[in-house]
């Protein structure tokens, strides 16, 4: 471990230093504004540290971690997303009775876990990153623990996530048993394995997939998603939907850049089945929901199904199109959950479809932001969601995955129905004279954040090329 080894880890070190600082400051002086500012400062500094970390890449730092262009891009994505989530949490946290400061500590810890996932090149770092993320999330989901549903959601998540972790670990142990290494980039030698080893490896990878599928909430491992999305405080839901899933997806891409996944193999077929079930199942189940957070939960199940289409294409377009779609999806989710978060307070979440009646009259801005997000989720112009979906589909077309593409199309059509239902509800006038609930004023701060995100999403939809070129220059070399 030399100084040259430490430089690529600079963002990670800054983030860890922030965590320690926030913890110590909280111990001496509880001040919501101070801790909030420190958290934002720490996240900004870690983003600023990224360019300093990107000299002489790719670079392995110990066998556990590898920092390459792909990692730099995803670190930036995770850190920036976390920054926005923290920004949008402030007003919600102001209304929390009791301690507010630990929320930021836990969010930073979870972000650290996601960053470790993004740069991990070894089962141990994978596992440690994943658990740092998950264990912080258990506490975050139950954060305003005196409200109803929080504890229930947290216990459901804990039990299922821990079970998924054991599947993941057992899968890892079988893969280690076969390969004799836990380093991703040394696992490529599939040739020359005996039949027994090959069988063990298939079981192992299948169990790994149960674990990863659970974290990404893919059908049939999706049971937790709607309950946790609904039960968790709105800013935490935003975090689960974006940072947590984004980090794990980055890891999935890296893992299978090393373990070859050939079209038509057993493992590939299982993945394809999961993708189809997620696309169709997620969308169908969303139709019958009347709670917007649950709708978004099922929608996220479907969207990760869409992402798998490009993942399964295994061609030169896969990684860049998945990354683009993920960026667009994260921005979209941040807007949607951001609107929910700024309109909610810990005692009454702004989540029932009926609450949204007349939103356009009360909060023109928030209503428009929400509609932009819904358009992007549906995949309608002029948003990044449409362009992303085209990229995904073109990756699928190049590998002629017609069945998967058909599922994508069917899913999108069903999606049209329930996204637009929410959008229409926003424009309808409330029943009776008085609206069902008086929405709180939105701070200028949160409004500006949501405004910038919405503009970004629309710009992404109109001129996607700059981002796509950036992505192609940064993530294309992965595993090559």
């Amino acid at each position, binding site marked *: 471990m030399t100084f040259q080894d430490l430089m690529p880890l600079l963002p990670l070190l800054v983030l860890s230093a922030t965590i320690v600082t926030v913890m110590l400051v909280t111990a001496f002086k509880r001040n919501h504004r101070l801790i909030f500012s420190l958290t934002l400062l720490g996240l900004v500094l870690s983003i600023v540290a990224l360019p300093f970390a990107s000299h002489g890449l790719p670079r392995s730092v110990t066998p556990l971690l590898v920092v390459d262009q792909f990692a730099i891009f995803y670190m930036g994505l995770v850190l920036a997303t976390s920054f926005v989530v923290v920004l949008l949490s402030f007003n919600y946290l102001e209304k929390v009775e009791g301690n507010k400061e630990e929320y930021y500590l836990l969010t930073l810890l979870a972000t650290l876990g996601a960053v470790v996932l993004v740069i991990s090149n070894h089962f*141990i770092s994978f596992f440690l990153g994943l658990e740092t993320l998950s*264990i912080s999330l258990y506490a975050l989901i139950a954060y305003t623990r005196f409200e109803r549903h929080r*504890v229930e959601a947290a216990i459901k998540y804990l039990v299922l996530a821990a079970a998924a972790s054991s599947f993941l670990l057992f899968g890892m142990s079988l893969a280690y*048993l076969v390969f004799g290494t836990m380093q991703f980039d040394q696992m490529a030698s599939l040739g020359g394995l005996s039949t027994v080893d090959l069988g063990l490896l298939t079981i192992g990878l299948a169990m790994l997939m149960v674990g990863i599928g659970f974290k990404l909430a893919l059908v049939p491992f999706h049971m937790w998603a709607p309950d946790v999305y609904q039960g968790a405080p709105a800013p935490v839901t935003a975090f689960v939907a974006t940072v947590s899933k984004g980090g794990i997806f980055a890891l999935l891409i890296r893992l299978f850049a090393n373990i070859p996944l050939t079209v038509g193999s057993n493992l590939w077929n299982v993945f394809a089945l999961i993708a189809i079930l997620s696309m169709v199942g997620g969308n169908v189940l969303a139709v019958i929901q009347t709670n917007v957070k649950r709708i978004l939960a099922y929608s996220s199940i479907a969207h990760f199904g869409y992402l798998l289409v490009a993942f399964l294409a295994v061609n030169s377009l896969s990684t860049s199109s998945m990354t683009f779609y993920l960026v667009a999806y994260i921005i979209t989710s941040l807007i949607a959950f951001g609107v929910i978060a700024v309109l909610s307070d810990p005692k009454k979440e702004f989540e029932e479809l009926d609450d949204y009646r007349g939103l356009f009259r009360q909060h023109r801005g928030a209503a428009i932001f929400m509609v932009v997000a819904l358009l992007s989720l549906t995949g309608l112009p002029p948003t990044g969601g449409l362009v992303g979906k085209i990229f995904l589909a073109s990756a699928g077309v190049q590998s002629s995955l017609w069945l998967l593409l058909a599922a994508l199309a069917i899913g999108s059509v069903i999606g049209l129905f329930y996204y637009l239902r929410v959008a229409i509800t926003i424009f309808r006038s409330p029943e009776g004279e008085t609206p069902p609930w008086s929405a709180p004023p939105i701070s200028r701060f949160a409004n500006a954040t949501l405004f910038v995100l919405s503009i970004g999403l629309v710009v992404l939809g109109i001129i996607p090329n700059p981002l796509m070129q950036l992505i192609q220059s940064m993530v294309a070399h992965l595993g090559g």
Partner: protein
Amino acid sequence: MTSIPLNQVLILAAMLFTVGLVGLLVRRNVFFMLMSIEVMLNSAGLAFVVAGARWGQPDGQVMFLFIITMAAAEVSIGLALILRLYQQFKTLDVDAASELQG
């Protein structure tokens, strides 16, 4: 010293894992569910030790230590949540705490 054959230990690990999984699915008391998860995690740890032994590397045992550490962290949060669950619902039955549906 005679070494224990690889496949026997693997079978033991698989059996432990199954026991844990069945326990998790069958028991409705949240304490027993946490304990079943412990069994599953430890069976994975056992499999890691076997895998390490096959290659003569310490990595498997290192991983086992990490698993124990993580299980401890998880249980500490789990127990805190169970306390809240009991105060809120006056029961440890997870089926009682099932209001989120739709």
